[in-house]
């Protein structure tokens, strides 16, 4: 026992490092840290040694070298003459594209599925349950393969569209061509284009910016209009109809801009052995997108179901007893409570989907793993750099998503108490 509280005035004995509550934690931490650093330096030393023996010290200069390979789906300018760094960027954008498309599709299907799962129609609810049990208990890679191969096996080849009496024909008034090389959909074109802005890394079309501006403006108007409606509801009790005005505010300016720019669609056309024009959603993209969506949807269905079911039945009953209608009960009482459970699960599913999109490499979709971790790695032989960079990029995507999640969770903690 310390008599006057000054630790160093006592005789310090070496054994106190272990048996004195004040130092023991420190001792343990320092031992762990030393062990960790030893292990770390051992590994690092091995790496440096091994790489030095092979004559390839770690450096990222290869990212500036000419890539020399083609990528079949590009969102920004890229040719075989571009650098490996640019190929990586193209791959990253492809990853983000398929992840984003997958998240959107899975969310829509998942919310619909979750609601149907809770439907009081036995058949529908069992059917959705069956879908969930089948899809989530089979590896996602297998689903990606099945989607990809089913697509390429069942869709007609471009050849079958040829001739006077073709075996296959285009859909939706000759605007969409579904072939085993991919789906060709119409592309937006402008007869009075405004050109591009050079952002250094890539170009952004001014038309796109204008349309975006219109949409944002429309959305701001919608918010204002809704606030006004709420104000009127607060004052008079009656909520004015806002739907049509909102719709017009969102759509009209965009339509006017589109007309002013001479918007028309470029339909894909069969030229020679393949389709030209339009936007090509390649077969690997479709296979990956479908596979990821169908698999992740099951988890979102479960999240929605569990979130809604977690709101006790008493809540609905109390609202019913107050005379509220089922739709309003859903939007004002049940969903706000369910969202607290659903949204964190949703975000973690987005994270999973993004990570699973790395399976692209199995079916040849040119995502980050196929470019940086695939062809670039093989061509440059820079395994260490390529894989570390790959992991770092994924890690930063994951961290971004976690930051969003934490922000949401903290905000939810603030509200309500």
């Amino acid at each position, binding site marked *: 026992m310390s008599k006057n509280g000054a630790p160093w005035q006592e005789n310090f004995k070496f054994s106190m490092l*272990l048996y004195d509550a004040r130092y023991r*934690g420190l001792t343990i931490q320092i031992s762990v840290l030393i062990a960790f650093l030893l292990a770390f330096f051992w590994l690092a030393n091995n790496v440096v040694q091994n790489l030095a023996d092979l004559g390839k010290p770690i450096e990222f200069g290869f990212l500036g070298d000419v890539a020399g390979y083609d990528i079949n789906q590009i969102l920004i300018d890229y040719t075989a003459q571009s650098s490996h760094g640019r190929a990586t960027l193209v791959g990253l954008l492809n990853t983000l594209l398929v992840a984003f498309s997958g998240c959107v599709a899975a969310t829509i299907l998942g919310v619909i599925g979750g609601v149907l799962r809770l439907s*009081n*129609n*036995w058949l529908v609810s069992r059917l959705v349950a069956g879908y969930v049990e089948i899809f989530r208990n089979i590896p996602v890679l*297998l689903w990606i393969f099945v989607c990809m191969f089913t697509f390429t096996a069942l869709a007609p080849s471009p050849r079958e569209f040829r001739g006077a009496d073709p075996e296959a024909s285009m859909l939706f008034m000759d605007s969409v061509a579904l072939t085993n090389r991919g789906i060709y959909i119409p592309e937006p074109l402008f007869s009075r284009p405004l050109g591009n802005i050079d952002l250094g890394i890539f170009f952004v079309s001014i038309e796109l910016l204008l349309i975006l501006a219109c949409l944002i403006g429309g959305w701001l108007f919608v918010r204002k209009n809704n606030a006004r409606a709420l104000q009127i509801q607060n004052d008079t009790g009656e909520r004015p109809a806002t739907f049509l005005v909102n719709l017009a505010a969102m759509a009209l300016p965009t339509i006017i801009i589109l007309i002013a720019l001479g918007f028309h669609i470029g339909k894909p056309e069969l030229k020679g052995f393949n389709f030209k024009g339009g936007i090509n959603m390649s077969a690997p993209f479709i296979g990956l997108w479908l596979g990821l969506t169908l698999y992740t949807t099951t988890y979102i269905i479960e999240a929605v179901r569990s979130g809604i079911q977690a709101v006790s039945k008493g809540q609905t009953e109390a609202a019913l007893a107050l005379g509220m209608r089922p739709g309003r009960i859903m939007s004002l009482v049940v969903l706000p409570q369910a969202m607290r459970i659903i949204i964190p699960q949703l975000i973690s599913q987005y994270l999973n989907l993004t990570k699973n999109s790395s399976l692209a490499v*199995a079916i040849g979709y040119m995502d980050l793993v196929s470019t940086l971790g695939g062809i670039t790695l093989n061509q440059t032989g820079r*395994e260490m750099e390529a894989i570390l960079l790959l992991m770092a990029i994924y*890690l930063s995507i994951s961290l971004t998503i*976690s930051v969003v999640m934490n922000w949401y969770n903290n905000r939810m903690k603030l509200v309500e108490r």
Partner: protein
Amino acid sequence: MSNYEFVRTDMLPQQEPPSDTVGVIGWLRANLFSSFYNTALSITVLFLLGSVLMNAVPWVFLGIWNADSLSHCREIFASQYSDGREYACWAVVRDRWDQIIFGYSFGNLEEGLFWRPVFALLFVFVAITPILFPSTPRTLYLATFATLFIYPWLIWGGSLSSYLSIAVLIVAAGYVYQILSKYMISLFSIGLMLVFLILGLWLLNAPISALIHLILPFELQSIPSREISGFVLSITIGIVAIVASLPLAILLALGRQSDLFIVKKLSTLFIELIRGVPLITLIFVATVLLKYFLPKSVNLDPVLSVMILVTLFTAAYIAEVIRGGLAALPSGQKEAADSLGLNYWQAQRLIILPQALKISIPGIVSNFISVLKDTTLVSIVALNDPLGIATAVRSHTDWNGIVWELYAFIALIFWLMCFSMSRYSMYLERKLRTDHH
């Protein structure tokens, strides 16, 4: 007398409900046709379901089981059915099921090695019974311990003694720990135990193994890791990952829950790093980078490297499950253990972990399911898991053009395993919840 007075003299018996609210009709009305909207929904769904089944059922059940190749199948369709449609060519499953399940190494019927993975799996079932059914005798844990060595022996082959000598060393290390822990704090005795174990494996393994071989001279044809394939590979990676990751996961979970700043940060760093990257990048690390991290003298084959990285991957996820279990324990447990004078490791080992792990079992089972599904990723680095074998079969001239039959077979097996385990984990979860009340 009051005007409200009423006394029932004879009690009413139970009556039958109106006939349209019970039985088949009542059920249909309540569950399928309760409103106009519901009726429309039911009819639409029935119609869609019907049209899908009308196509799928004949495809499955009119399929051919007896054929040598896809073209042979097609000949049979043409001669047997005049409708010109194609049906399933299940012959590919009949031809290759043994490869898909047992892989190339055990898959050859003539060599008669089937029994090894089958027995290995049976041992696993015996091993998990004491964990799954707490009422079984405790001595079964011995079988669990034995399985840790018999399973690898049955899969990899070689001399039984080399596996048993490791077992002997581990038991010895356990005794070393018990003796040491009387004289020093647990963390150091654990450290010294590990040192003993490593030195033992390095220096004593060969002599002990030779000694055991004199008594138990059992030897199986040895199978190199890279030849393990098919579902045997998937299941082996899954089991190795779960079992080997548990100790690490427990340490990581305790570390992340601990008050010690550095320990907590290091554990968190490891867990978040691993959880932040896709498994495929870790598999790349295993097959491409691992050799750089180790001294030149160490020569790991790809299957072992993958197992190591999948183990680290699993450990991060299971650590989070266990952390949830630790957090769910009432703080009174820790306080009670402290008040009895138990030190940190005693409290963890005797009081906290047994309870936390019990709560964590459903989560660990779900993780096992995920790992099992994720093992399919090894096909990307050219290991022969079922999907890898399917690719090989599909590129064989006999079966070129086959798609769904093979994947349906593989999917069915995965589904049977994963579905039954997920049901089991849900059952456990329910049971845990009711046990607590």
